[in-house]
């Protein structure tokens, strides 16, 4: 009976699984194939790595590429730095209503469409915006200041967007840390810092890692936030991909870039996992 039920479920699941993996694998294979075709003439294509060579040969491309990676890593660390105390507060100190409210606060950036949210930031940070106005009124600056279209604006936007994705896994792992473990640390003579370092962080490691992976991926692959807040000079790699596909209509080159982004992100996540001694399946738990 049990075996029969299991079989039934498997049969039920099989097409679903097949469909899902098809949806996931085929577009990527397709994209990879496309990235390997060189445009020799109008409607004439050959297989080759010219699209990848273009990336290597043009410094603008790989500069943008490196810049995107570094900015994303920085955004991830910043999010972790801000998110950890927030998550600790939600998981261990806040109770009842306060806890729910704080969680909701983290959800708010999510509530509003990323597009609308980014426009909101633009309104706030532009030359004629409220922040510039406030600084002029307070006499700190004499003329209007442009806060938009720089790296700091991109960073704020990325951190703000990613906060929830860092806080949720952190709250989950910190919730599972028995309070008495922290008390035992104090009881045995530990200071707050030593307990954080030796007990809390090792316990929260899977949450930290999964939060960082997600935030990094989201930042790296974000398009709207860096482009809108960073302006024309944001030099975000997704912008290059967009340009290839939409502006230049060079889908082959765009596919190559897309594939490189996928490779880059996988590589950095893999390196991060190695460095932190975590495994992906452990983190997924």
């Amino acid at each position, binding site marked *: 009976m049990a075996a029969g039920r299991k079989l039934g479920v498997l049969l039920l699941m099989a097409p679903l699984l097949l469909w899902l993996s098809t949806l996931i694998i085929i577009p990527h294979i397709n994209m990879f194939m496309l990235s390997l075709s060189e445009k020799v003439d109008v409607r004439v294509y050959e297989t080759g790595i010219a699209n990848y060579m273009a990336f290597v040969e043009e410094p603008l491309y790989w500069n943008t590429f490196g810049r995107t990676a570094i900015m994303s890593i920085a955004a991830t660390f910043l999010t972790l730095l801000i998110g950890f105390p927030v998550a600790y507060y939600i998981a261990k100190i806040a109770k009842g209503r306060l806890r729910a409210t704080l969680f909701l606060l983290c959800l708010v950036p999510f509530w509003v469409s990323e597009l609308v949210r980014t426009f909101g930031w633009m309104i706030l940070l532009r030359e004629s915006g409220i922040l510039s106005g406030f600084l002029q009124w307070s006499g700190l600056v004499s003329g209007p200041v442009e806060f938009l279209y720089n790296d700091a604006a991109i960073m704020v936007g990325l951190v703000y967007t990613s906060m929830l994705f860092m806080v949720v896994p952190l709250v989950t792992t910190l919730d599972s840390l*028995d309070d008495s473990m922290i008390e035992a640390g*104090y*009881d*045995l003579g530990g200071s707050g810092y030593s307990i954080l370092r*030796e007990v809390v962080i090792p316990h929260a490691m899977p949450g930290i890692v999964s939060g960082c992976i997600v935030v990094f991926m989201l930042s790296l692959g974000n398009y709207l936030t860096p482009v809108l807040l960073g302006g024309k000079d944001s030099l975000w790699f997704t912008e290059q991909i967009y340009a290839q596909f939409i502006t230049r209509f060079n889908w082959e080159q765009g596919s190559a870039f897309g594939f490189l982004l996928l490779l880059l992100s996988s590589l950095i996540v893999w390196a991060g996992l190695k460095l932190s001694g975590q495994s992906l399946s452990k983190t997924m738990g």
Partner: protein
Amino acid sequence: MSDSDQLSHDLECRHVTKSFGDFIAVKDVSFTVPKGSFFSILGPSGCGKTTIMRMIAGFLDTSSGDILIKGRSVLDVAPNRRPVNMVFQHLALFPMMDVAGNIGYGLRRRGLPGPEIAKKVGAVLERVGLPDAGPKNINQLSGGQKQRVAIARCMVLDPDVLLLDEPLGALDLKLRDHMKVELKKLQSQFDTTFVYITHDQSEALVMSDQIAVMNKGEFEQVGTAHQLYYDPATAFVAGFVGDSNRWRGKIQTRNAKGAKVSATDGLAILAGPISQPLSKGDDVDIFVRPESIVISFDAKGVGKFDNNLQGTVEAVLFNGANSRTLVRETATGTQVDVALPQTGEFAELTPGTEVHLGWGRAQARCFAASDDVGVI
């Protein structure tokens, strides 16, 4: 209080009170724990025993009163500086460290050099009977081994007082019985003052030198296991410590030897000396322990007792040396729980048998009626 007096006890609580808003969790509790003794606080869940322990450990502030360790007030001392350590209910061993790492944690915090830590950790592991457990992972240990590591982790710091918060609660029955003996042994071995809180009366009775029975934030009685069991001070203690038959009734006549009580179910009981100021007409609870009731097949066997009654066996609860029988009294229909002799004399008793029961008036304890007697 003289100095010598102060040095003879490790822990003293003076009029300690703790309230959370309107709720008073601990009401004016005072006690002293002599040096090197095993002191238990026994009470049902929610009675405030955990609150006392957390105040001693420093995780909670007192609302009023003072806590002294070795004669010095520790109210202003942070928990990580108090000379007390605590074994938590679920032990709270650090799973991210190995056994040696757990035990060495406190020593590292004190800044001891590595080799000395290793030596001390080795020595304490030896003493708790786990000489080779150092490099083991916490998850590789059995329940009893974890227990011993948790104690070793505290004892390596040489605390003045070790607090234990129901540490046996998570173990299964056989292991718990075993660990009771083990814990008592470890305590006399380390010669440290243990303060143990539990809701399990058998744990408290077996291990403790002194037991405080706690109810609703107050101590009902403090005494040795013997005193609590054979000479309870209140109805709550009589009901909570050990098993008892209990009858609610009214005092009919009252004299120096005790009282004659008529129970609400019709039974007339002669009760022994009464310590509380009770007089005729007062509502009382009568407690008679199952093992104080003598069972016999004929009336003559129980004739000499102050109380004797006749009934039929309703059920036999065989449990080896702890077998019991439930007897339905013929006249009033009241049910009496009677322990069967360990000798196995009545081992073949079957439901329906007519039996006679008897007990002396001294075995029937009489207290002012209380609806809060620690039984279900």
